[in-house]
């Protein structure tokens, strides 16, 4: 039975769960009593220090900007290619093998090659992240394009609907779940690769900071930036991705709760 109490419990449970995790961390850190595992208090102190100096927001902002740029590039190019391969059997036969090759090149190799070929530039950094993500997006959108229900396309053809209308009103809405899946897994992939790109060839950003703290053996600093970054990505998921996905799928019939 759904009642007010159940709703509160649903909101409280994740918070309680995370509190347990933090509590566990505090206990283990206390028991370990080692420089390499600072407790939540020490990490919080670093967070406050970096936030008040503005450094935290500067580096977070730079990293998020790189993520956003790579995300937009990868989703646009990847979606276009994925839809093409899904709708055209000949294109798929021709370029399918290339996709397999690019899917299997390690991220590190792409990053290193980008820096070697294009220099230690912002463009190379963002490009490397995008190139890492594009094959994943292509695979997901290709599946989506293959799964398109032809009966609606036939209906549109019958009524002589314009190509742009077919794309906008018949094809793209069916691809929404696939866009969402590609966006979600892409976000998770991108933010990890962005940190490596920054560590290897940039002089700012969360990855650069983590590398700096690594060289100083300052684990509290590493953890502080990690916590801040994970929190921001979670916020993005909650405040941007989920509402957008909800709006795009509001036509779906709602299943009754058991």
């Amino acid at each position: 039975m759904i009642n007010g109490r159940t709703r509160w419990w649903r909101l409280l449970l994740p918070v309680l769960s995370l509190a347990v995790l933090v509590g566990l961390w505090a206990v283990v850190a206390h028991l370990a009593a080692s420089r390499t595992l600072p407790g939540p208090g020490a990490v919080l102190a670093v967070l406050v220090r970096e936030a008040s100096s503005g450094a935290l927001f500067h580096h977070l902002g730079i990293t998020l900007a790189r993520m956003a740029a790579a995300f937009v590039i990868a989703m646009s190019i990847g979606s276009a290619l994925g839809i093409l391969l899904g709708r055209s059997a000949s294109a798929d036969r021709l370029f399918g093998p290339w996709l397999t090759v690019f899917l299997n090149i390690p991220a590190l190799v792409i990053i290193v090659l980008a820096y070697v070929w294009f220099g230690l530039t912002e463009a190379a950094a963002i490009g490397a992240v995008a190139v890492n993500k594009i094959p994943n997006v292509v695979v997901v959108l290709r599946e989506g394009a293959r799964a398109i229900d032809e009966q609606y396309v036939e209906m549109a053809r019958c009524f002589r609907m314009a190509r742009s209308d077919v794309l906008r009103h018949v094809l793209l809405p069916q691809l929404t779940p696939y866009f969402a899946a590609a966006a979600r897994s892409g976000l998770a992939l991108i933010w990890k690769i962005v940190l490596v790109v920054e560590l290897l060839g940039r002089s700012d950003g969360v990855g650069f900071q983590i590398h700096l703290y690594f060289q100083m053996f300052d684990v509290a600093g590493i953890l502080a930036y990690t916590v801040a970054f994970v929190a921001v990505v979670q916020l993005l998921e909650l405040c941007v991705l989920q509402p957008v996905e909800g709006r795009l799928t509001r036509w779906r019939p709602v299943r009754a709760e058991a």
Partner: protein
Amino acid sequence: MALVGPSGCGKTTTLNIAAGLDRAFDGTVTYAEPNPVIGYVFQNPRLLPWRTVRQNVTLVLPKARRNGGGGLVDEWLSAMGLSDVADQFPTRLSVGMARRVALARAFVVQPDLLLMDEPFVSLDEPTAQRLRALLAAMLERRPATVLFVTHNLREAIQLADRILVMAPGPTRVVAEVPVPVARGMRDDAMVEAFRAELLARPDPVFRVLA
């Protein structure tokens, strides 16, 4: 014209060829006017589930006619009794209502050729009767060439000017039967009598109607 015949004899394929959806055939399709406007009422309504009822009916109009045609769309929705659900998504509609939206969508383009593939199948009889009456009224308002596939001989007799009997292997029209009484004068008694007469005809092609 009603197309009647046994399952699998090629009635839907005939409609699809006429609509230009099926191009895997030898031969030609000739229209009285080049590039006729086609309205197709599919057996499964094929409404876009992610667009509202109003949007489904509006989107089949050419872009140039959509804004001015807002009145036209509302007019057809009102004629079908759908004004109250115009802003709903099709997943919330009953089968009967979805079929009415499909009818409105086919009529709003003012078709030269209206193709209908068993549009009233699996509906309860009162709803089907209402929709048949609606269709007849629509055609009085705006005549069009109609190709109507049905398994229901009574429905064919009620609505058609001519009944084309089809047979399989190879798909072909084996008989063409004009319905002798004007549509407005076809009551239940007339329909039953004509049906019995068709089924009693000695020509073996009429066996498929039973």
